[in-house]
């Protein structure tokens, strides 16, 4: 894929576009040692690695396919000379609807007094009539490949697979890692929804599970009973800083977990703002330095389908001086007037920020709002100081900026979930 100058992007003066790659969309981008590691959203593409020695001319050096056509590998993390990629059922929530076909068919038959036709089953499941056969096929096929793969990337152009670890259920979503441990968000037998499973990478060819953490109610195999339906409350992912894991939990808020004893993760405190706030918590992470004399963390929600009267997903600024009493300081919102694509279709609202920020700046993706750069110098009053909104890719009504990473030189990689990677220079 050849890079080209980006066309028709909207930007602030402190962000200069360097190159645009019209590559298939992705879930995560990581910058590491002069390379961009990209997890693509859908098979047959899995992971792409680009050499950014000249960020105006990114050069594809390696591609890794998913394990099979039914899995996707849309997340990636790198530490030292190790890389981990996830293995998760592709279109997992769609195929989960197949598990309800028998119950829906029985309910409809009882109500109608005859066997239902596929159109009626489809309507009850909220899918198209033509999807029912696909759901049945998926149910018959099942899925048992979920997990993660560990790679040696000493030479990024030639990743070498060291291990494949099976986990459970639909497999692994986002995760964190360092050179010693992997902090995996995955489904596991006996639990409902994703939990945290920590693996020791001392021997990366044989990752070894050392501990688990879950929300109260998830461990049904041990007799716990969830107070919610389906997988509504689950871990999205947890990020480690020092001896604390910063965990974002779906519709359940932000949790701080003590991992000073790696074998026994322990909840320190949490802040749950559901209700009244409607969008699920996506990421929770502390800033490296105190701001305004306070230890500050960020949480960001992921935009859902928009309902009138509901705020678009936004950024939270939290006081984490005392982790047993996590408290909100402020919130930051982007108005629809800030992007010409806000109402063009697709999602408009927050999704993700650059994990591991430096200083008081937050680089956050806002789907159709593109990239927003927010200054938290005064954490009570966050202010936007830059933006970049890519032009929609061909065939799309709006950009869907999904993930972001920034390196120490101010090189920014902005990844769209549908199509495209923008490489930018931030001159803050």
């Amino acid at each position, binding site marked *: 894929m050849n890079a080209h100058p980006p066309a028709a992007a909207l930007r602030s003066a402190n962000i200069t576009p360097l190159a645009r790659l019209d590559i298939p969309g992705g879930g995560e981008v990581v910058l590491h040692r002069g390379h961009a590691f990209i997890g693509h959203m859908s098979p047959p593409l899995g992971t792409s690695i680009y050499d950014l020695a000249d960020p105006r001319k990114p050069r594809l050096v390696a591609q890794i396919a998913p394990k099979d056509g039914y899995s996707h590998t849309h997340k990636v993390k790198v530490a030292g000379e190790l890389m981990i990629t996830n293995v998760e059922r592709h279109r997992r929530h769609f195929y989960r609807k197949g598990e309800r076909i028998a119950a829906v068919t029985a309910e409809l038959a009882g109500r109608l007094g005859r066997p239902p036709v596929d159109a009626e089953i489809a309507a009850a499941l909220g899918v198209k009539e033509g999807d029912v056969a696909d759901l049945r096929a998926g149910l018959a096929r099942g899925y048992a490949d979920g997990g993660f793969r560990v790679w040696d990337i000493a030479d990024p152009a030639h990743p070498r697979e060291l291990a494949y670890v099976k986990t459970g259920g639909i497999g692994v979503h986002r995760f964190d890692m360092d050179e010693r441990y992997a902090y995996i968000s995955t489904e596991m037998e006996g639990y409902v929804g994703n939990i945290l499973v920590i693996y020791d990478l001392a021997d990366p060819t044989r990752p070894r599970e050392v501990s688990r953490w879950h929300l109260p109610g998830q461990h049904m195999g041990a007799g716990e009973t969830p107070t919610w339906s389906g997988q509504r409350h689950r871990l999205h992912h947890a990020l480690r800083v020092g001896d604390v894991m910063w965990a974002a939990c779906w519709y359940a808020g932000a949790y701080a977990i003590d991992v000073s004893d790696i074998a026994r993760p322990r909840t320190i405190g949490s802040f749950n703002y559901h209700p009244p706030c409607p969008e699920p918590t996506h990421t929770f992470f502390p800033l490296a330095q105190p701001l305004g004399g306070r230890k500050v963390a960020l949480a960001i929600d992921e935009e859902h*389908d928009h309902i009138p009267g509901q705020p678009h997903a936004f950024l939270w600024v939290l006081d984490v001086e005392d982790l047993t009493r996590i408290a909100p300081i402020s919130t930051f919102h982007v108005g629809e007037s800030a992007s010409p694509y806000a109402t063009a279709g697709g999602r408009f609202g927050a999704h993700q920020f650059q994990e591991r920020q430096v200083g008081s700046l937050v680089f956050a993706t806002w789907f159709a709002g593109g990239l927003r750069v927010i200054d938290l110098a005064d954490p009570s009053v966050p202010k936007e100081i830059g933006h970049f909104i890519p032009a929609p890719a061909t065939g799309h009504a709006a950009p869907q900026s999904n993930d972001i990473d920034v390196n120490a030189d101010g090189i920014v990689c902005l990844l769209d979930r549908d199509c495209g990677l923008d490489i930018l220079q931030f001159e803050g």
Partner: protein
Amino acid sequence: MCDDCFDDEDAAPADFPLEDIARAARMIERDIAGETAPDEAWAVYFGEASGALDWRVLDRLARSVDAARLLLSLSGPGRAAAHSGPVGDHRPSAVCPAAR
């Protein structure tokens, strides 16, 4: 709706016209003890403007909107709830005088 992110269980609340929600919510919010939120805060909450919101203000507005939805649901059903389609509606301003 993104099949890769959201479950069926993530169904959203009943969907009423923004102007109805805004009118009811602002009426309710004025009756809550404490300082009434300014127009600018409502504009940020309803996505009309960018800006910061203090948590106490956000909580006040969110609870007012929840109460407004309940009030509206008692006076009639909303539109089909979840998966209401793209955000392409031509929405009236929630903070313009006509919406109060």
